[in-house]
Structure formats: C-alpha cells, structure tokens
C-alpha cells in the first residue's frame, strides 16, 4: 500500500505557525531521530521501517487506529519494549545524536533521559504524594533533603499540581482524583529531569475538565521538553501538537506539521482518518 515516495524520510517540518519558537532554539537538529525502525514480537512485525524525526521542544502527536503500533513505537523510544521477552528491534534511534539502541547504552540510564507517562495513572499506592514525586531521585541515590524538596516543589509546579496538594504532601497518593493522579505521574516523570517526555494516551481515562488541564500542561511543558504523545483523540492531537504522525498497520503513512495534516493531508488514508471516515 505504501509507495516508495511515502517511505522518504520526512524532515522535521518547521512551518510558520510554530517556527518562531523553533527558531529561538536556534537548532534545526531533531531531538529524536528514528531510522528504519522495525519492531517484532516473536514472528509478528508490529512496526515496519519507521523513519521519523521529532523536533526538540515541540509536541509530536502520533495518531492512528488501534493496533497500528503507536504505543509500540513510543515504548521503543525508551526501550520499554524490552520488558516483553520476545520483542526484537531493527533500525536506529538517535537521541540528540546518540544511538540509544546500542548495547552499550543501559536502558536504566536511558529511561532517566526519556521519561514516560502512561494511559492509566499509576502513582505508587504505598507512598505519599511527596514520595511519589521524588521516588525516581531517591531510588537513584539522591539523599540531600534540600535537593529533594526543591525538585518536589518544582516538579509539582511544572505539573500544575502544586497549589492543589501543597498542604497535604504527606497524604497518600491514592487520595487524589483521577486527573490529579495523572498530573502527579507527570510530576514524577519530570522530577528526574528527562530530556524527552513520552505520553501514551495520557488523558484517555480522564473527564473533559481534567483532560483540558493535561492539554494545557502539555502546551506549557513543551517550552522545556521534547514531547511525543500518542492519542486516539484527533481534537487533542490538533489542539496540543506541532507535528503529527499518522500510523496505519505498523507503517508511517504521513508525517508533517499538525496544521497541514489536519487541513491538507497528502495521503487519502490520512484524510479519511482525520475526518473520521475510518479508524
């Protein structure tokens, strides 16, 4: 189905709407550069030669119908796919130029650079709000109270949760509402100061108000972080992202500036999907 020309590697598009900030960065080099990435689970090939550059300090949305490999793609970026024993990866992923699939790269240290937020909020139930945020630091050997306290406040501020929880930091994390729990998970991921934040349908289990808060947060966070977000919600992709990649049946069908993907897609399949005709 995919013709040769669609296989060509899309450049990180810097279109008018969002180029101002990108120019401020003064760097055209992408944060993540994926080349010919194939992922297999056993004999099943889930991703087929994906090539894609994700711009730094921008939001890249990954859309596509269920089972198209969106989550697998995301999870290969911090090597979470290795938790599945039968998983195998081919191709190349470079994080700011460094080949992260090479055997010399420890997945543990990679994951400190590439944080992840999951679909289902999963704060640790045995820990308080504060302990949840600082757990990534504490279990990696950070002991200084001043550092922990400062990161705690900073991360919660970044996740727009500080005002809601500052008076009950010692309360159990499970006492928070669903939306607050998800923002707590974002704060937890931010506390280890990653370079890239992967979000796997972060708002799909939340009500519209909580979803809006998460989306506002994503727009805020991209000032500092490179964000990749998997979403089923087309409006969400349109509202929050700068670039959009459309996956279908394990292949990258189209990739470009969000405004263009949603208003003037080059591929018929993309158009059908974003207009809700299938998927």
């Amino acid at each position, binding site marked *: 189905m995919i013709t040769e020309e669609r296989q060509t590697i899309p450049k990180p598009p810097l279109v008018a709407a969002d180029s101002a900030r990108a120019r401020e960065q003064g760097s055209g080099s992408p944060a993540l550069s994926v080349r010919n990435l194939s992922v297999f689970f056993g004999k099943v090939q889930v991703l087929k030669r994906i090539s894609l550059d994700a711009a730094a300090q921008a939001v890249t949305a990954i859309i596509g119908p269920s089972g198209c490999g969106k989550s697998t793609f995301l999870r290969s970026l*911090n090597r*979470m796919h290795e*938790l599945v024993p039968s998983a195998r990866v081919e191709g190349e992923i470079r994080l700011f130029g460094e080949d992260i699939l090479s055997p010399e790269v420890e997945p*543990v*240290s*990679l*994951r*400190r*650079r590439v*944080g*992840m937020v*999951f679909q*289902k909020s*999963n704060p*640790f*139930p*045995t820990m308080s709000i504060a302990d949840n945020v600082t*757990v*990534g630091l504490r*279990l*990696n050997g950070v002991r200084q109270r001043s550092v922990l306290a400062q990161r705690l406040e900073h991360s919660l501020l970044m996740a727009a949760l500080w005002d809601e929880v500052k008076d009950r930091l010692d309360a*159990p994390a*499970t006492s928070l509402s669903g939306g607050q729990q998800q923002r707590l*998970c974002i704060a*937890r*991921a931010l506390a*280890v100061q990653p370079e890239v934040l992967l979000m796997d349908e972060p708002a799909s289990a939340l009500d519209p108000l909580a979803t809006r808060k998460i989306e506002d947060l994503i727009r805020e966070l991209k000032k500092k972080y490179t964000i990749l977000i998997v979403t089923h919600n087309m409006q969400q992709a349109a509202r929050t992202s700068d670039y959009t990649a459309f996956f279908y049946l394990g292949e990258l069908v189209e990739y470009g500036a969000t405004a263009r993907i949603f208003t003037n897609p080059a591929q018929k399949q993309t158009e059908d999907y974003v207009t809700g005709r299938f998927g």
Partner: protein
Amino acid sequence: MSLKTGLPLPAPPGSPEAKAETLGRAGVGIDSKQESYHRWRNVKNGLVQAVTCLCTLAVLLPLALVFNHVLKSGLSAVNLTFFTGLPKPVGEPGGGMANAIVGTFELLGLAALLGVPVGVCGGIFLAEYGSTKLNWWIRFAADVLNGVPSIIWGMVVYALVVVPRKGFSAWAGGIVLGMIIVPLIMRTSEEMLRLVPQGYREAALALGISQWRTLVQIVLRTALRGITTGILLALARVAGETAPLLFTAFGNRFWNHSLNDPIAALPLQIFSYAISPYEDWHRQAWAGALVLLVLVALVNVSVRLLTRERSNRGRLPL
C-alpha cells in the same frame, strides 16, 4: 394481578395463541402461566437460599462447639501459674505450661527464621523470574508439598537431622515446621506479587529505577501486607502441628536451655497430658488447648485487621 384489569383476556392456556402471547409479553408477567412460573422461580430461589444457609451453619456449628467445649473444659485450669509455672510431677496438683508456651514461640521463631526467607524468595522467583514451563513445575511441586502429611515431614527431618545428630532438638523442630511453611508461604507470596499491577513495575522502570530496586522498593512494598498475611496464616497453621514435633522437638518437662536439646511445645504437652490417665493432667491439657486456640484465633483476627485496613485504603484485595 392488578395489571390484568383493563387488558384483553388472555387466550385459554395451552392454546397456540396463549403460547404466542406468552412469548410476546415475556417479562411483563401478566400471563397466568408466567405468574405460576414466577412463583416457582421464587420457591426455587428460597430453597437454594435455605440449603446454602444450612451449609453455612454446618460450617459454623463445629467451630462454636469446639470453642464452647474447650472454653468450658479449659477455663477452670487457666490461671497465673499455668502461664508461669513448670509442669509438676504426677500426683502434685497445680503447675503450668510456661515452658511449652515459650517453646511453641521458640519453635515458631525458628521456623519463621528458616522458612520465611526461602518461601518469600521462592514466591518472588515464581512471580518475577523464571520461564512459564519451569514455573509450572515449581508450582506443581509446591502444591504437592503442601499436601504432604505433616507426619511424613517429621520422619524426613528425623532421618536427616535427628539421627545424624544423635538427639532430638529445638533445631530439628524448627527445621520441620520451617519446611512445612515454605511451600505455603511461597504460593501466597507469589499470588500477592502477581496482584501488583504491571503498571507499577512499568512506571518504576520508566523512571530509570533498576529492576532490583523496582522489585524491592515498589513491588514488594506494595505486596507487603499480603505477604505478611500469608506468613502469619502459615505460622498459625503450624502452631498446632503435633505429629512432626514428636519425631523432632520431642517435648521437655523443663526449660530448654539450648537449641540442641529437646524442647517443649503446646501441642506436644497437650498430647502427652491428654493420653495420660490423670484427671489433673486432663484439665491442664484442656487449658493448653484453650491457650493454643486463642493464640491461633488472635493471629487470624490480626490478619483480618491487617487486610481490612488495606481494603479501606483502596489497596490490593486479599
């Protein structure tokens, strides 16, 4: 019934029209045939409820009987000396089981010392490591071990520990109880660890926390209450074991001063007093039974409290 008024009369029962009507009005319940069907259904429901109630009573009744009888027979002999004194020689009234009570705790302590680490680590292996096939066999072996009669455990330890060391000892008693609790604790620990949602492991690993720390600080911590519950229940189960201790701890009418010497235990003391021909010893045996029963009941109550607090906080169900 009142629904019927104002509606056209139903076709005579048995006629094809009636059948069609019944089908057509299924769920409305205005047909006489359906009404009798509903009545029959209610009767059936009542019957089943009565049978299950009776069965529940049949389970609870023995418990009440046991408690009642042990209380009635044992309470008269329970006094301060029972908890502080040593057994008196035949013919001398009074005396107590202090050595047996302490001995039971010592044996349980030894059993926990030996059995808990092995059981919990085995459970961790089953839940977190290993291959599906290997784990199937380990699980199968553990379940078989759980079914091994305790007297056989006693014989095994007699042959492996008591004979080579040429003597009964507290160690041998602790080892046999420890061996009995290993498969029990292994299986409950595994179940508790598997109840920890995969999302917590992934969240921890995605934060760049190593697998080892994830296991200890996140997964084990989340499952801790469940594992503790399993350990307590396993210890409560072996607290009353008598047969394996006959071959190993042997019993002792005096204080045990070394773990290499025979040691008294409540079930052993109850056993030897109960088969004796003396009235006074019988009363003491009942008192010992009461103390043992209360101990085990206390463990069970504390387990309930532990698990209740957990469910209140929205943690893992047992």
